[in-house]
């Protein structure tokens, strides 16, 4: 019975952490965007604007809830919930650190909610059903813009799911396990981003598409579809969509960190020093947080700088560039692993070199086609 209590407490702590993270991510994004755009950003609510998320939340709670007359009432209410739930539960399998022993009771507490042997598959499964909320929101609103947004979301999700899955496969092969804890453990000596840099890059691109962030924010493309799938949502229901979007950002960064950036582990060259998580267990969550913050900054930076890609080009990019490239990477990784097994561990460098060449070829081809298009026009 004790085990149940432990799980419930851990689940609550994790949920609370993600919720707080979401709230402060909004502030982080607004301040970072403002910094990039030579502005100041929210600084009036509380010291340095630290209470801004709370103000937003309280305001949205006390805002009128509105359901359009001809909307499908049931799905209209269900959609935001269906968006937010996957974003929360997907974090369950992500290891946040090693473990520590509870004082007095002498009971070991692991820093993850669950370590299942198909952890990576769990991630894909949950990520793939996360789109339902958006699609249903678009459909149930009875608004043409919302529906276009919902349709874009479903098409985009399907296009990028496969490349994302292949990037998972690369990490699985390198870690030789589907358990996230094992994958993190396998990165003790070398982060996978060093071994498979192109895979990490593709992973981050596809995750941008999966969480509908700029430049892939098709479903809510403000300038095209006004507010896209959440056009008709107000008050707390809208807040749920908002929440889901930012939670997904956090969670997806956590996954990226876990799969490619050593998870909760320190830099591989800090192994055995006092900075190692083996030395202090509480360094694990801190390292994870730092890495996540850095990745999030990249997401914000991209949003501030790049124009939005066009909807059909986005699909073409997914199918014609990312999918073949990630397939090639899976193949190259497999070859590298076989080489290591047969000839010795120095052949591990075959993987980064060959995949960088593959990535370079892809970039060149894309560039060439673009140049041809410019020339033709």
């Amino acid at each position, binding site marked *: 019975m004790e085990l149940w209590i432990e799980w419930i407490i851990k689940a609550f702590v994790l949920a609370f952490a993600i919720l707080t993270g979401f709230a402060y991510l909004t502030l982080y994004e*607004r301040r970072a965007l403002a910094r990039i755009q030579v502005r100041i950003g929210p600084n009036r609510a509380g010291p340095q604007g630290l*209470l801004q998320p709370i103000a937003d939340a309280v305001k949205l709670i006390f805002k009128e809830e509105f359901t359009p007359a001809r909307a499908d009432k049931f799905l209209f209410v269900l959609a935001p919930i269906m968006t937010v739930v996957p974003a929360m539960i997907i974090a369950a399998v992500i290891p946040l650190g090693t473990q520590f022993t509870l004082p007095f009771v002498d009971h070991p507490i692991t820093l993850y909610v669950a370590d299942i042997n198909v952890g990576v598959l769990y991630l894909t499964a949950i990520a793939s059903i996360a789109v339902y909320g958006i699609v249903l929101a678009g459909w149930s609103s009875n608004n043409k813009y919302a529906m276009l947004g919902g349709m874009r979301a479903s098409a985009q999700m399907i296009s990028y799911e496969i490349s994302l899955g292949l990037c998972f496969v690369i990490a699985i092969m390198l870690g030789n396990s589907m358990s996230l804890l094992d994958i993190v453990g396998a990165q003790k000596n070398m982060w996978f981003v060093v071994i498979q840099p192109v895979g990490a890059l593709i992973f981050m691109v596809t995750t941008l598409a999966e969480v509908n962030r700029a430049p892939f924010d098709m479903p809510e493309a403000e300038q095209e579809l006004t507010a896209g799938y959440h056009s008709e949502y107000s008050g707390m229901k809208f807040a749920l969509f908002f929440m889901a979007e930012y939670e997904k950002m956090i969670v997806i960064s956590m996954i990226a960190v876990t799969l490619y950036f050593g998870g909760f582990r320190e830099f591989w060259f800090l192994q055995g020093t006092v900075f190692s998580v083996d030395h202090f267990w509480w360094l694990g969550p801190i390292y994870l947080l730092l890495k996540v913050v850095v990745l999030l900054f990249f997401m914000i930076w991209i949003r501030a700088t790049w124009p939005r890609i066009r909807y059909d080009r986005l699909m073409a990019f997914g199918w014609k560039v990312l999918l073949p490239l990630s397939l090639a990477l899976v193949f190259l990784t497999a070859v590298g692993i076989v080489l290591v097994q047969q000839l010795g561990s120095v052949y591990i460098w075959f993987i980064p070199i060959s995949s960088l060449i593959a990535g370079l070829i892809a970039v060149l081809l894309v560039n060439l086609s673009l140049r041809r298009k410019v020339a033709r026009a």
Partner: protein
Amino acid sequence: MGVEQKLGNLGIVTTTLETTVNWARTNAMWPMLFGLACCAIEMMSAQAADYDMSRFGMELMRPSPRQSDLMIVAGRVSRKMAPVLRRLYDQMPEPKWVIAMGDCASCGGVFNNYAVVQGVDEVVPVDVYVAGCPPRPEALIHGVVTLFEKVKGEKFKDLVKA
């Protein structure tokens, strides 16, 4: 309206809650992304680097009226636009506020003729009028801050409709 209406009906003394909610509303007032004419350009300037309305948490301009709290009527409202404006106002959920930015929106300005509505208060109820043709960004921000003062004084009791 939301929860506060029921609270008001109960007649419970809710001053602390009132203060909190009004504080939240003033600090997270999302304007609607909606410009009409010249004033819209100054409204954009107010969002930009030199003036930066985002300090007040106001840079989240919502393209959908469903998610906005504040309608800044920036510019002249023609007779053709007036029904659309009213409709947008009706689409905004409570609580909502309106700032008439500039002379044209406040009273018709220099355009005292057949085509322009002589003051947007004929179409939607206005909370704050900002004078100027167009008002400088500072003037708009002053108008917004004036609106904050008004919002801070709002009582749940008054919002309950008979």
